[in-house]
């Protein structure tokens, strides 16, 4: 068996637009996941019982159902049940952001819990109201401490986006499948795809480390 990577050349433009799709889904999902995880984690630390139950139930659903099933459910199932039609892109972003929010809020809960009670007391003693206290005093410190797990979640999210290939969106993985179908070659396209993802993840982790260093500047002694 001889390997022939030259077959990839013709597909490079396709890889280019596919990479864009992957990145778009990843970043959109990350954005909404972060947005959603804040109220969710606040629910998890609240002492209002129903909010707590809701947040825990939410997390258990997204943890307990395989993510591919969630994708199929959202893209194929929900439109039939409700009549709400979604593009593959929207369905992907909805699932990935809601799924990631469940995991991120869980580590955020830990991060918030780890903040010393004295921080709350100092803020309260200064007359700072709850929303401002959370936004400016507690969450910034909590985010800082969960940043490493956020980067991990981000990487997981990026890799999970390959699942959108299964609902027909042309992401990097889907291009590989197309090449395989057209040329009957599997090693070359999937090798190139592996490299693509590996490089993306490396860039992300490097970026995450740089970010960590930046936010930790206040710990310098």
């Amino acid at each position, binding site marked *: 068996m001889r390997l022939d990577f030259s077959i990839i050349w013709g597909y490079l433009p396709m890889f280019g637009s596919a990479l864009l799709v992957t990145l778009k889904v990843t970043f959109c999902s990350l954005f909404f996941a972060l947005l959603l995880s804040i109220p969710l984690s606040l629910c998890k630390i609240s002492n209002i019982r129903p909010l707590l139950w809701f947040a825990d139930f939410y997390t258990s659903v997204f943890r307990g159902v395989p993510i591919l099933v969630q994708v199929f459910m959202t893209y194929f199932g929900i439109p039939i049940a409700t009549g709400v039609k979604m593009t593959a892109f929207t369905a992907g972003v909805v699932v990935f952001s809601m799924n990631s929010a469940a995991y991120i809020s869980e580590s955020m809960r830990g991060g918030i819990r780890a903040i010393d009670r004295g921080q709350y007391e100092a803020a309260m003693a200064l*007359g*700072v109201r709850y929303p401002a206290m959370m936004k400016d005093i507690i969450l910034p410190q909590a985010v800082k401490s969960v940043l490493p797990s956020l980067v991990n979640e981000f990487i997981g999210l990026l890799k999970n986006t390959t699942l959108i290939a299964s609902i027909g969106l042309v992401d990097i993985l889907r291009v590989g499948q197309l090449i395989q179908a057209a040329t009957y070659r599997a090693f070359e396209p999937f090798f190139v795809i592996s490299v693509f993802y590996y490089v993306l993840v490396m860039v992300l982790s490097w970026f995450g480390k740089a970010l960590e260093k930046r936010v930790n500047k206040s710990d310098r002694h």
Partner: protein
Amino acid sequence: MIDIRNLYKNFGVLPVLRGVSLTVNDGEIVSIIGPSGSGKSTLLRSINLLEPPTYGEIWVDGKIITPPDPYLHFEVIRASRTYRHMQREGWDDDAALIREIKARDLLKNHEGQKYHTLLKEITQHSFVDANVVREKIGMVFQHFNLFPHMTVLQNMIYAPTHVKKIPMDQAVEKARALLDNVGMLDKIDVYPGTLSGGQKQRVAIARTLCMDPEAVLFDEPTSALDPEMVKEVLDVIKRLATTGITMILVTHEMGFAREVSDRICFLDEGTVLEDAPPDIFFSTPKSERARTFLEKVL
């Protein structure tokens, strides 16, 4: 004026404060001392409701910040069903009846409309949100509790600009002056993590003062410090004591308490055993408990 009326605090089933009453007038400096576990810190922390009391009331400048305690208002007790019921049962001495109701904690939730109207009236007339009071009463903690993700300056101006809505430039100016006062102006742009304990506490005091408080609560401000740093912090507090600000201190520094205080309040097992000027308290304590305590610590 801070007026603590018959304060009770239970942690679960453990009673920590058992009927503490204490009035602190404007400009007065009161030190709360006593053995550990006597409820000193709990008492101090209940004044700005970091520790909401179980029973009793706290009044600040004529405003109540706790829910009204029915047992502290005779007219409310007299309006209760229990009172009227017991009256019909043959209790004719009003004072004895009220004493009995208090002693046996007889008031329940269902005491009739008049009872609840009276309680609501107290709230409507005098209640003020704890946050309003917290802006007027600063607090200095044992563990400083500076915000580690903010520089010294940001720590100082956060509450003035966000809570009191003071313009940024005014707040910065005030912060600089206060930092200069405590000898920390050269550290204005560093993060708290780089400071020593004594420096942190001096910044924390300045941060509290940046809100222009009428009173400051000190919760064992030197207990977490290395011995060589205690003096620099005490000196700052002593200087503050001469400015006419109201101060309530929980401290283990007896010499310091004697020097700065107008009154010493000795707490033991959740009750005030003595409340006297420092010279009298330290030379001739009334209670046996205070005598043995002083023998141990002096």
